[in-house]
């Protein structure tokens, strides 16, 4: 049985959809007692239908499918269709139930939109529903053909050891300044105001990729990227040394790997900022786990210097499956995703939030007003993300004497960079670097 769901479907390739149609047509003569089951895995969230997951799902069904002399097809859109002959109803139900359990995290598995329709799975009793089944099989084949034609365009290669080697070579000579971005974090200060508490400086991986490795997905391999990020640390620290702002933010945050804290460039930055400007180091929980002893040591050192430690990149699962509070960090960054609003995630989210003091929690990646509203509803006071940037730019434009010449998008883009033409285009760099006091976003703010 071919269980590879992602065979590239060229014109002469026999796809799973072809085989399915063949099988369906063959059983047309003896439909009695046969069942066709359509699992709509294409409706799962993208992160829940990775290739490995689908392979495993197919495997879970295999024993039953072969017990009832059937066939299973993994379609190119991630759906699974299988045909079985005179299955025990209980067995069938049990297998579908177990599969549903495997994907229980996804809203699809318990979503019935109120009308009793099961969106996860459709069962066709081929004695009666044969024609309807043929229709969906034909539709699947047609869709697969269209998709095969569309996906002929080249996809990015994932980062591997050989391509990483090339990327690192290009990085040795590179001035990272054009790729450094900054983003502000705000805190609701009370009295209807919100203020910038720090600016985070980081290397934009997307822009870097376009510039030095346009055919490689730098984020396509976790371990390779982790290794790359060690080198990016050095480039970022160098760029920070050359940083010239007209006005410094109250505090600067940078993303670093733990070993980079021992880098002389970091110590130089720490010295240069002195007591006037705060410094926070953001790190991934993975880094904390990879060498916890080094982490605790680094943390102690930061504390002695009065610097802050931030745990970055948290999600509902990390908060629920490990006690991140034991890191003793000053701030925890939870990444916003729209799924966090889904009703069936409510209990899990509330449990996750209970593990950390809300005053130390920041909602990151807020790219919409909904994100901020959700955060306020859940007792959070600190926010960061594209939406926050837009709010800050809008406020800046409200008070900037040169604002008449600019659009909001321009102002936002100029806020994000630290050097280069974008920044030079701005008529008032002081305004650009001075964090404004903004009005607290309302729970249900009217659309601007």
């Amino acid at each position, binding site marked *: 049985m071919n269980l590879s769901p992602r065979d590239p479907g060229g014109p002469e390739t026999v796809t799973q959809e072809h085989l399915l149609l063949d099988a369906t047509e063959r059983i047309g003569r003896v439909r009695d007692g046969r069942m066709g089951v359509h699992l709509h895995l294409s409706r799962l969230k993208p992160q829940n239908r990775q290739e*490995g997951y689908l392979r495993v799902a197919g495997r879970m069904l295999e024993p039953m499918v072969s017990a009832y002399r059937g066939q299973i097809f993994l379609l190119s859109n991630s759906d699974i269709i299988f045909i079985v002959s005179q299955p025990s109803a209980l067995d069938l139900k049990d297998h579908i139930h177990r599969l549903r359990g495997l994907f229980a995290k996804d809203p699809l598995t318990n979503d019935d939109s109120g009308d009793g329709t099961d969106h996860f799975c459709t069962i066709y009793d081929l004695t009666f529903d044969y024609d309807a089944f043929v229709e969906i099989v034909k539709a699947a084949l047609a869709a697969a053909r269209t998709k095969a034609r569309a996906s002929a365009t080249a996809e990015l290669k994932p980062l591997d*050891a050989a391509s990483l080697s090339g990327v690192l070579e290009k990085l040795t000579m590179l001035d990272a300044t054009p790729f450094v971005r900054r983003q502000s974090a705000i805190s609701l200060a009370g009295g209807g105001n919100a203020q910038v508490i720090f600016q985070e400086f980081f290397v934009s991986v997307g822009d870097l990729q376009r510039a030095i490795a346009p055919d490689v997905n730098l984020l396509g391999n976790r371990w390779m990227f982790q290794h790359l990020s060690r080198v990016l640390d050095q480039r970022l620290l160098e760029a920070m040394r050359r940083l010239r702002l007209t006005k410094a933010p109250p505090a600067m945050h940078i993303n670093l790997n733990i070993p980079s804290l021992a880098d002389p460039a970091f110590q130089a930055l720490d010295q240069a900022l002195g007591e006037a400007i705060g410094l926070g180091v953001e790190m991934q929980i993975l880094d904390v786990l990879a060498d916890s002893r080094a*982490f605790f040591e680094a943390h102690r050192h930061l504390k002695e210097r009065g610097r802050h430690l931030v745990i970055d990149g948290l*999600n509902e699962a990390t908060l629920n499956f490990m006690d991140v509070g034991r890191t003793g960090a000053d701030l925890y960054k939870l990444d916003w995703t729209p799924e966090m609003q889904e009703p069936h995630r409510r209990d899990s989210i509330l449990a996750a939030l209970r593990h950390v003091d809300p005053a130390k929690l920041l909602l990151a990646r807020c790219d919409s007003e909904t994100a901020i509203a959700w955060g306020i509803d859940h007792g959070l006071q600190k926010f960061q993300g594209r939406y926050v940037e837009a709010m800050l730019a809008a406020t800046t434009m409200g008070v900037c004497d040169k604002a008449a010449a600019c659009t909001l998008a321009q102002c936002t883009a100029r806020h994000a960079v630290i050097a280069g033409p974008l920044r030079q285009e701005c008529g008032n760099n002081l305004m650009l670097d001075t964090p404004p006091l903004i009005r607290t976003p309302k729970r249900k703010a009217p659309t601007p």
Partner: protein
Amino acid sequence: MSPEAQSRGTPIPSTENLLLDYIHKLERHRHGRSACRIRLSLLQPTNRREHQIRAALLTFDGLIRRLKGQVFALSNSDIVVIFKDVALDEVQAALIKLRFLFDDDPMLMREDEGHAAFVEWYVVDKDYQTLLRMAQSLVNEDIERRTQDKNRADEAAQPTQRQKAREPLTPALLAKLQTALMGADLANMMRRQAVCAMVGQAPPQPLFYELFFSIGELQETLLPNVDLGSSPWLFQELTETLDYRVLSLLNRHDDRSLSGDVSINLNVQTLLSQDFLTFDDGVKTNQRGTIVIELQKVDVFADLNAFLFARDFARERGYRICIDGVTVDSLPFIERGRLGIDLLKLAWDASLVEGKLPDGSTLADYVRKCGPSRTILCRCDAGNAIQVGQSVGITLFQGRHVEQLLAAETRLRGGYAKRRS
């Protein structure tokens, strides 16, 4: 570990142990038998690759089929043949074939000049004690080698320890290494180490054997001047390549390693791969419960959702899961129960003597919560590790010292057999 598993803990005997057992059994049947030890270990490394050893073994196939002799392929590559004297000619013939097979090796070319012999001969009746001593020392050497390999593997996996003098692993070297590993047969780099239940003064009871590649040997063979553990992330990537090698090795049906209770080290992504599904095909349903899958803590937390998915699948198939790579410092972050994992492996560290975790809580409390029969203290190189472990309630141990105790146990059994006669 469940009680069923504990009672099922049949160890996989090493060939050396099998040989020793066999020689004990021979004690009353010494007459009319001879033995020879073929010193393949003295050949050039290029002459004792897996396929060559296999070819050498094949020359004795007829002997075994006609029940005239026993052949033991030792882990140092040597072969021991014990046979009835009626088969002497047959053995001589096989040896001629074997010499022909390796006749370009300096060892064989110098044989006549008074150097160590390629074949050592024993008349079982007359040389029984010599034979017994040889077998016993082979058992000890094997254990010694295994513990050394394990320690080397641990060192390579721990970038913070030693090995500073070697040049660091770079992505370019890793790419070369991955290519080299693609077609390599790593069977002779596979090692085993027992995870044992140890209560009070009772001898260790093996529960299962961890199968792993000797990273030290891999490093020595393929990149002798490179420290494979210098970047934890590149090392992690390397382990993904090794996963596929271990699965393909275990998929070979002639491999005996999987005939008992074992644990294998895999990555979460490997559990979701076609190679694992193929491996799973070859495992008998009732055997899955005896296979433990060890996952590194960073791998588990790198993508918790993928881990949860793979965990549910693996448990559904009957495998058990152990989280590996936990240190005293990372212990407070790992809650076995919350993660829904069967076993936790904590690496011995001298600071455990104090019985305190970095957050001030006690190790004893942690073990109680984690489950005394679900916490394995590994890298126990000395007796005090076991004492400390037992004092906080741990009952499962692994490491050099445990292997030594097991070896002593084997020697004791040997001694007992001798007295019996």
